[in-house]
């Protein structure tokens, strides 16, 4: 029962409590770049989710095989491989999405969320749990992109998924489509999520490793001894 609960917790924590964008503050660059349209946001979110699930599973599978000294290069090769595969498939079957995402599709390789989850979670957990973490974090990333994109597209362009919204299209605030508008919405969303999860999200009790939102996952294993002493 507790194992089942633990699995569910891994799956759902990425959606809100440990949302990679709003709580862990990872992947800010693709978030701001691809959240101008809902279609682009969903495409980017799902592409990153696919890469996240596959890379998490493979890295977890190979965690005993990969020597610790070359783990980051190995992770990068695996992630880049999956990103290229996803990129090729999107280019072949969804060419318009490929055009929309542009260079940011290839840049999923260096998305901190994916490398971060590989390092913090998949490298230490079972394949199943890593897959759940990939799904949870991927959907959390997609949800975050979708929520920001909805606000930016509806208010900034007067459309939703490219469909014009009567009245709003005449009173659009184009500033929200620009980068500063993206930062503004991003900041507001972080504040809203913080308010919603108040008392539940990882608290910043101390500066240093312990204050990191990912502390609940890594437990400070990679950090210096001061954390362990504090424990």
């Amino acid at each position, binding site marked *: 029962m507790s194992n089942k609960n633990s699995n569910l917790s891994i799956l759902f924590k990425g959606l809100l409590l440990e949302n990679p964008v709003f709580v862990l503050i990872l992947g800010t660059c693709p978030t701001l770049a691809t959240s101008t349209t809902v279609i682009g946001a969903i495409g980017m979110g799902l592409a990153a989710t696919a890469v996240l699930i596959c890379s998490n599973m493979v890295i977890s599978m*190979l965690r005993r*095989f*990969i*020597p610790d*000294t*070359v783990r980051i*290069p*190995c992770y990068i*090769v*695996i992630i*880049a*491989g999956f990103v*290229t*595969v996803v990129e*090729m*498939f999107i*280019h*072949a*079957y969804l*060419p318009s999405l490929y055009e929309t995402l542009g260079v940011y599709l290839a840049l999923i390789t260096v998305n901190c969320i994916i490398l971060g989850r590989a390092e913090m979670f998949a490298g230490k957990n079972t394949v199943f749990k890593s897959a759940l973490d990939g799904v949870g974090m991927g959907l959390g990333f997609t949800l975050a992109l979708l929520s920001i994109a909805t606000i930016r597209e509806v208010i900034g362009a007067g459309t939703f998924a490219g469909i014009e919204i009567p009245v709003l299209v005449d009173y659009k605030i184009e500033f929200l489509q620009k980068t500063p508008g993206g930062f503004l919405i991003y900041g507001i969303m972080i504040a809203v999520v913080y308010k919603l999860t108040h008392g539940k999200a990882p608290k910043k009790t101390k500066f240093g490793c312990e204050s990191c939102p990912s502390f609940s996952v890594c437990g400070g294993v990679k950090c210096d001894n001061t954390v362990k002493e504090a424990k």
Partner: protein
Amino acid sequence: MKKHLKTISSLSIICAVVAILLAATNHITAPIIKEQENEAAFAALTEVFPGGEGFEQIDISEYELPSTITEAYSEKSGGYVFKIETAGYNSGFVIMCGVDANGAVTGATYIASSETLGAEKGYGDTLIGSTKDTIDSVATVSGATKTTGAYKNAAKDAINASVILGGGTVDLRDEAQILNDNLSAALPDGEGKFTSLFITEELDGVSAVYKADNGKGYVFISGENFIATDANGEVISDVDDELKSSISDSAKKIIGSEITEIDISGYENMPKQVAKAYKTTSGNYVFELKAAGFGINGDAYYNPSGEHIIIKVSATAEGKIIMCETLSQKESEGIGDACANPEFYSQFNGKKEANYREIDAISGATLTTNGYKTAVSKVFEAIKILKGDD
């Protein structure tokens, strides 16, 4: 050592497996991506060649095509589609143009442009059906002469390229090159560098005179003939005696002619359009005139950008214009700037006071034409004043 080997081998194995995975994915997706690219290219091709089938790219490096042609596709029925990179107002104007088997334009559209395109966007449609013989009669868009002119030239290049690809030959030289080649053929010693001379003497049947920059001689254009003389005016081209004698006389007049500036400040009645006046040894006159261009009405500048058109005119003492030339102007681009076109100002050559008005005005530039004509008319007045003084 064992640890190092494990590190190297594990990273190598991961790289190899990823490479195999990518190769497999590429094997699946590459044909689909290629097909999509072909479809996109085909869509652009059929847009300028409606109903075209079986397009195949041609290796243009095997042919000597106009330099603006960057890609060429053959069509099943014998037509071609060309991608042309040219310069309109700015560089980087890319046009697709289709030409059918009969050498007529099937369509032209721009696919990339750094221009600010307005009404000229649909200009390609006006070129449909044009052939080598008719394309020159297609008017450019007023106010966008450079861009639409570039469009038209691109279509001309496409027509020429289709002739070349079809096995024909086309003279790809522009007018200036053809002129220079003819001058060089007449006077090889000129080494391809010639300067047009402003004619101040009445020459029999000669329309233009060029002097070799190295001083080796002159070339006289008489009708279709290019006749060369040496620096002393001796005809060296192989022509009949009559023409030889006529050109020889003309050459002597040109070489012997010297001009002296007349101080016009003392002439109270001298028209204000006359800026400078000269007299030749043979008694002809040369004037530098300031014509009121667009933006100048009489003496008043109603447009701050108004500038005078500077004109040089030579005339006989009897009041017959020998040669008229626009030296400088800042008239509206694509409209009044036609006053710098030899086709316009050469109309005054041979005109007298009685008939100088009988010239074709510049379309859409009445003020410029009137200012120009008024200035030229002052030549006749000035001659009378100067002659009266003599």
